[in-house]
């Protein structure tokens, strides 16, 4: 009897130990360490920042930052809306101007005016109560493979209208407005440009001119676009104003170029979550995101432009990825009101 029981206990203990050892190794840095308060920053999948900058913030503020990536801007917003009663974090960063109205309308964020806000972010304010502070600015623009046009002796396109020009038939690839955020931004850009009445006509022409619609940026940019590593067949793609900065040739010069007259501006915001439990600490995190220290990293790490003024950009950006001067934009509440309707109309128009 005794040996049998002992053996059972031993077996159980081994299994438990194994399981917990594995869980620990898989768990990584879970849980609180010591007295340092941990503040959870809920952000989008594209979030990236140098570890030393994050470490410096922790040293200066005494706040440990836990980063929780939660999908793209839309998914992030929707998760925040779903969990607003008991949020999954204290502060959020990554809700953009296309989704800001939904987040504000649902009461996801609480008012907070960062002392850093008047250094530039204020320019992009969406809300008189200051519930959201702009952190960065990114533009979705048409990118072209300059080498293709040079070798085919074609003039480079420059405008929306050019994309519908038969000269450029079957050369453009774009993303679905329903499934990809650059796709939606591009659609919004055309709505801003051609108006609520005019955009379907423009898209009909694009369709007739052989535009290809992919469901994600990955396929469009890395497989169908000729200017990226995928060496696809199409030299025109909907991507970001900053993308050319990642496609430098061996000579240090960009192989691609953004068409600055085809840009739609996406502004990404940060805010303190209304249901969060550590409001003062969360406010410090917003201050940090707007600080010179963090703002200096966003260009190199996330391919976006800092919202703060006077922050220097990485070398090469001046030529490869200049900030568009006159990007199209739409008021956040107009986007909120029209988004689903436009996407629906766009899907039936494009059969996508």
């Amino acid at each position, binding site marked *: 009897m005794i040996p049998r029981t002992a053996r059972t206990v031993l077996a159980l203990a081994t299994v438990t130990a194994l399981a917990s050892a594995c869980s620990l190794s898989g768990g990584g*840095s879970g849980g609180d360490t010591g007295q340092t308060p941990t503040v959870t920053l809920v952000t989008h999948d594209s*979030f990236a920042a140098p570890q030393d900058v994050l470490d410096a913030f922790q040293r200066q503020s005494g706040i440990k930052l836990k*980063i929780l990536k939660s999908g793209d801007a*839309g998914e992030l917003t929707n*998760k925040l809306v779903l969990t607003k009663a008991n949020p999954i974090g204290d502060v959020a960063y990554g809700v953009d101007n296309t989704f800001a109205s939904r987040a504000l309308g649902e009461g996801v964020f609480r008012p907070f005016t960062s002392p850093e806000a008047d250094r530039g972010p204020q320019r992009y304010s969406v809300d008189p109560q200051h519930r959201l502070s702009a952190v960065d600015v990114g533009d979705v623009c048409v990118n072209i493979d300059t080498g293709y046009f040079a070798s085919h002796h074609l003039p480079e396109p420059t405008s929306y209208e050019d994309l519908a020009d038969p000269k450029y038939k079957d050369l453009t690839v774009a993303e679905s407005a329903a499934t990809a955020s650059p796709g939606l931004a591009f659609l919004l850009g055309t709505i801003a440009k051609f108006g609520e009445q005019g955009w379907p006509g423009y898209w009909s022409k694009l369709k007739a001119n052989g535009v290809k619609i992919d469901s994600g940026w990955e396929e469009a940019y890395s497989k169908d676009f000729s200017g990226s*590593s995928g060496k696809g067949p199409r030299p025109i793609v909907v991507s970001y104003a900053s993308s050319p900065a990642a496609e430098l040739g061996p000579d240090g010069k960009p192989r691609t170029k953004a068409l600055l007259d085809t840009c739609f501006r996406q502004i990404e915001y940060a805010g303190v979550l209304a249901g969060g439990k550590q409001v003062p600490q969360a406010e410090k995190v917003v201050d940090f995101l707007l600080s010179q220290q963090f703002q200096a990293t966003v260009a190199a790490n996330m391919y976006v432009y800092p919202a703060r003024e006077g922050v220097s950009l990485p070398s090469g950006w001046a030529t490869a990825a200049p900030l568009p001067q006159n990007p199209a934009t739409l008021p956040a509440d107009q986007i909120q009101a029209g988004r689903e309707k436009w996407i629906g109309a766009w899907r039936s128009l494009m059969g996508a």
Partner: protein
Amino acid sequence: MALAHGSVTHARTAGLALLGLLPVAFLVVFFAWPVVAILGRGFSSGGVDTVLADAQTWQLAVFTLVSAAASTVVAVVAGLPVAYVLARVKLPGVGLVRTLVLVPFVLPTVVVGLAFRALWPDGGVLPLVLANAFFNVAVVARTVAGLWGHLDPRATEAARALGASPWRAFRTVTLPALVPALASAAAVVFLFCATSFGVVLILGGGRYRTLETEIYLRTVDLLDLSGAAALSLIQFAAVLAALAVGALARRRRDNAAKLKQTTPRRPRGSEWWPVGAAAVVVVLLMTPIVELFVESLSTPDGWSLAGYRALNTTGQNGALQISGWLAAKNSLAAATDATLLAMTVGVVASVVLVALRRSPGRLARGMGETMDAALMLPLGVSAVTVGFGYLVTLDALPGDLRTSPLLVPFAQALVIIPLVVRMILPVLRAVDLRLRQAAATLGASPGRVWREIDLPLAARSLVAAAGFGFVVALGEFGATSFLARPDAPTLPVAVATLISRPGELNNQMAYAACALLMVVTVVGVLLIDRFGSVRGHTSVGEF
């Protein structure tokens, strides 16, 4: 006195019910509750009926079912010759094939989608059907081989002696005997295909949508929970139908004739035809895989190991928060945890299911059938539905699991448990009752009988189930990407992150990480298969 006897039976039923609580509790907490909660939100906001009345919804449903059925047919047709080779043929390399066919299973859908895009740049229905089949050939091959290796070859020999051609003998004798395994595998493949997401998104190019992609879109991008709930209802119905077909097939299996282990041998004469067909299938399966290796090594400036060297780093401009190697370690750890968890829950569930089915009470048997079906449901519900369900429910548990890294192995286990149960259950059910009774009369308590008789007899299936579960966990993307924290991504999540960033090196590193994932898989499966072949005697397995 009859009462006294009754109380023994009741006590045993009560014990069973208590043991059965473990899998039931797991399913309720990590599946039913979150799913019901999120669907409930959809229903309460109204509008479900308008979506159900919309003709587009039904077009979507029809396309989903038809394309999944087509993929299933392709997977079955491609899987059969491979199953034959695995079960009956003794040639050098068969062992390797057994392992290699599993590799597609772990590949991140985004990578496979892009690989198929290289061949069909415009996407479309054909590559979509083929890609979904590509993932699942292993399910058919391994499941059917399990039964095929146990079919008595004398039936075929008798048919041949009576003048049947080899093809005719196969069609009239072997194929009908394989139907239970075929139908069971087909049901699982159908579920996988009908709920496939990444591949449909990439190869459907937005033109071809399925219930799954539409549920994702409505939940994640549009927050149209009522629309998603309506579509989930339809998906649910389709899943239940597939499960019913699978259950019918399994019932037939129970009545199947006595099985007999056959030894594989070198093929002769016309037996080379299926071997040739299997070789073609394996070559086709390997094509996208070889392409991935090529991609991981090629740069515009020629061949390079830069992608592999980059695995030591966090990618160009810190695309990842940790290095590729650490992501591999995370993958292994999460998959190990998930497998242990799924084996515990799955074995307990199987034991309870078998015991309930054997018990004399009609109520207990009914409970068994219900639990059997319920265990399969996680395969048929969107990862996104479960993931969003977690967000609105799991904060009620102590420790707010919503954002805990512990949730990753739990979610993966949810996907594996149905597979584990499908593989273990038939073997446990096949254990001769009288063997167990002999053990009982020799003094073995009911628990001891399971440990001394059933589990050792099912050892090989247990190992096979663990191996397959491990592989599925390694490759699991849908739920994992939803739950994995950026400081602890698994390899598939890291691959998807890398590929979504511009930059030559990130792209290469993504493919190198894919190659690493495949190597990890092959090594893991080889180890597990070796361990499995050393012990145990029974190896009938199905899904």
